[in-house]
Each structure stands twice: as C-alpha cells, then as structure tokens.
C-alpha cells in the first residue's frame, strides 16, 4: 500500500509540474551526455596511447652529403645505446617507395619528387618511449645528422587536442550539471510548496521522515534516470552516426571505440544522474521541509 502511495505521489508530482520536469530532464541528459562523451574520450585516449606508444619510432634523418664513416659512427652509436630496442635503416630508394605509397592519391606530386631528394634515415624504437630526451642528447651531436624527429611529440599534439576536447566537454557537463541541480532544487521546492498541507498533516499525525521525503526524492531520481537514459541514447546515436559513418575515415587513425565501452556508460550515467538528483533533492528538503 505504502509503496503504491509513494509511486503514485511521484507520478502526480512529475506531472503536476511537467514543464519544469521536462526542463530538468533535458538539462540532466545534456549534462550526462557530455560527461559520458568525456569519459569515453578519456578511455579512448588511454587505449590509443597503449596502442601507439608501442609503435612509436624515432626518425633520424641524415644529411644528403653524409659519408660512410659518419654513417658507420651513427650506426655504431645507435647499436651501443642501451635505450634502443630495435633499429632499421632506410636508404633513399626505400624512402621513395614508402613515399609513393603514402601519396599514391596524388601522382603528380610523386612525379615531381625523385629518390635523391629524400633523405636516408634510421628508424629507432626505444624500449621506453618516454626516454626520448636522453637518447636524443647522445645522438644529436654526431656529424651527418640533419634532424631527429620523435613521433611521440607528434602524437602528443594529437593527444593534446583530444585532451582539450575532453576538458571542454567536462566543463560543459559541469555547467549543465549545475543548471540541472538548480532545476532539481527548484522543482523540489515547488513540489514541497504545493504539498505543504499534506506535509503539515503528515508531520502532525507522525508519519516517518522517510515517508514524507521519499516521494520528493524519488521524483528527482526518476527525472534523473530518464535524463540519463536519454543521455545514453544520445551518446550511442552520436557514436554510430559520427564515428561509424560520417567520420569513419578518422576511426582508422583513432582506433575504434568498442561498443562495450559505450554500454558501460549506461550504468555510469544512470548512477551519477540518480545519485546527484537524489542528494540535491534531499538537501533541498532539509531547507524547505524542516521535518
């Protein structure tokens, strides 16, 4: 009976103030979508880091006029360096072959380049990519080296972009969450006001505090749950439409987002959404109900 009463009160409460309820659900879902997106992005960057850092190479480009003695010295220096895991050498012809594959879409460009205009290089994998600076310090002074490029710095630029997108969506999530909290608080105030007579009578006849508060808190929780489900649906649609279709080209670089990770967002968003609204509602009641 009491459960039925509480549930009925929740439905009546949500319906009584339906515009506010809708506003509450929308802000909640936008906020949770942004939160979900940023968590997914975080997980994604993590995956990409482990994936790409294993592949990272340091390229040591040699001068065009490098002589055999210099090359041998460089070769020797790389081989004797304890940080090096793997080393490959690429001469001008091999570099040109790779170049042709890389730019096969623009043959005019390829034709304007000859093998001699590309530098020969060493490709070095470090056992710990983080120690690039130490490695570079020992090599860079050698004669015959034109340039040392650490792919990690390139990759880090990409990750930095991801990072700032992630931070941005977190900020949006936080701002929307703040708006959602204010709306929850306001909705609860309105609900408490419109039920002030019932609440007064309940207090008078000795209804327990949880019984008085439960409909209000549950009202906020239900709105939070609806908002989180909507947020999850938005996230899923966004993933399918953007990454799997429109921006598919990007995903070849980005490493695909596993569906499992997206599904993981449902309990996360539902948990955050309902917990945050429950706490907000409860705190608001402390101030406006004085049970």
């Amino acid at each position, binding site marked *: *009976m009491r459960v039925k009463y509480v549930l009925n009160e929740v439905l009546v409460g949500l319906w009584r103030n339906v515009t506010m309820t809708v506003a509450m659900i929308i802000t909640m879902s936008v906020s949770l979508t942004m939160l979900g997106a940023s968590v997914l992005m975080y997980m994604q960057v993590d995956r990409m880091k482990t994936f790409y850092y294993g592949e990272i190479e340091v390229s040591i480009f040699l001068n065009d006029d490098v002589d055999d003695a210099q090359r041998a010295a460089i070769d020797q220096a790389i081989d004797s360096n304890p940080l090096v895991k793997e080393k490959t050498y690429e001469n001008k012809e091999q570099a040109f072959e790779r170049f042709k594959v890389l730019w096969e879409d623009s043959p005019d460009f390829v034709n304007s380049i000859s093998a001699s205009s590309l530098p020969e290089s060493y490709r070095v994998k470090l056992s710990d990519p983080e120690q690039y600076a130490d490695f570079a310090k020992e090599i860079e002074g050698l004669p015959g080296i034109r340039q040392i490029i650490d792919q990690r710095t390139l990759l880090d630029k990409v990750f930095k972009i991801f990072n700032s997108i992630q931070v941005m969506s977190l900020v949006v999530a936080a701002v929307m969450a703040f708006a959602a909290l204010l709306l929850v608080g306001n909705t609860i105030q309105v609900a408490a006001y419109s039920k002030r007579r019932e609440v007064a009578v*309940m207090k*008078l006849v*000795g*209804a327990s505090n949880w019984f008085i508060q439960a409909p209000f808190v549950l009202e906020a929780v239900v709105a939070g749950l609806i908002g989180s489900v909507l947020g999850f649906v938005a996230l899923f649609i966004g993933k399918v439409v953007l990454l799997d279709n429109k921006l598919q080209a990007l995903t070849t670089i980005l490493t695909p987002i596993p569906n499992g990770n997206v599904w993981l967002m449902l309990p996360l968003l539902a948990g955050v959404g309902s917990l945050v609204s429950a706490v907000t509602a409860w705190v608001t009641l402390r101030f406006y109900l004085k049970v």
Partner: protein
Amino acid sequence: MIQLENVTKTYPKASRPSLDNVSVGIEKGEFVFFIGPSGSGKSTIIKLLLKEVAPTSGKVVVNAKDVTSLRSWKIPHFRRSIGCVFQDFRLLPNRTAYENVAFALEVIGKTKAVARRVVPEVLELVGLGGKEHRYPHELSGGEQQRVAVARAFVNRPLILLADEPTGNLDPDTSIEIMRLLDRINRTGTTVVMVTHDSNIVNQMRRRVIEIESGRIVRDQARGVYG
C-alpha cells in the same frame, strides 16, 4: 501523563520568555484548560508537548517519555500517541471527510483494510455519519472541526491536544464540539485544551490553569474563566 518541570522557553530575539519556569502535572484522563490572554504563552505549551519546539531549560515528560531528550528521528513515532486539533482545522481540501481521516492512518503505515474498518466508526462517533464523502468546502465549520477531531482521535491517542478548537466557530457549534471533546475524554483520553473562550470554560467546570506573561497564576480543579 504530562509533566512540565521548571520549563522556560525563550524564543530567539524575544525580550522576555514565553514560558517562565513553569511546573505543572496532568494525570491520565484529565481534562485541562489552559487559559490566558493572547501572547501569554499557552500555545507554546502545545508546541512543547508535540516537540515542535524544545524548551530553553527544564524538562517536559509526556507518556513517561522525556521529550526534551527525544532524538529527532523518534519524534514521528512519538507523535502517534498524541492527537491534535487546531483553530484552522487543517484539513486537506481535495480529500473527502473519509479520505482526510484515512490519510492520517495510511501515512503512518496502516492498511486500507484497517482504514475501511476504523474510519466510518470514528466518523460516526463524531456525528458525521452519512457525510463521509463530502469535501471540506461542502461542510460547515463545525462539521469540518468534527472531521479534524475524528482524524486526531482515529489512532486512539492517549492525549488529545486542542489549540483554540472553537476559535472559528459560533457559540452553539462550539458547545457541540466541546461535548464531543468531553465524550472523547470519557473514553480515558487525556484532553489538553488551550482557549480564551470564557463561555466554554465556565460551562465545562474542569481544571483550569491560567497563564499570564509566561507564568502560572492560577490552577483550579473545577475552575471558571475568572
């Protein structure tokens, strides 16, 4: 049943205490009037007994329970042993007489079946048989107060507190309400009534405790308004 021991209550920002070192004892089954001019502190007694406010100093004992040290989460359960009636009835306007009384039962966890058995009985007792399904706006002031009395009494409380229950009623209706309270008192329920209706106090000839400026100035076993 009710014991106030050296109770002083000073509201924040008030220049003088509403109750000043008041001690009084009320036995089970008594019918007691608290009388006095407005602002004398008589309503504060009701609030203390319900633990709506806590005394500044002193001890309040109700039903052998020390209310002063009662933990806040125990207050709801404590209040179930006390019925309350007010000047403004405090009925829910969107519920019928039956539903108003049943609401009080349901929110403390009684089943609908219990309500179906008990509510008609208590409405009959207060003289509202046949008017169960009227809304408060379809009832007269006296009838509304009867609904309120029914709601206060449906849980068979040990104590009934009435704060100016006849304040909004004409003299004849007031007498009827008093007869009802008297009937309830005869079932063994302790009745504490705050009023400044001299007519009623003089007719009932029950114990009268007069309060002035927060102090008890008179306590008479079969008193009049004075």
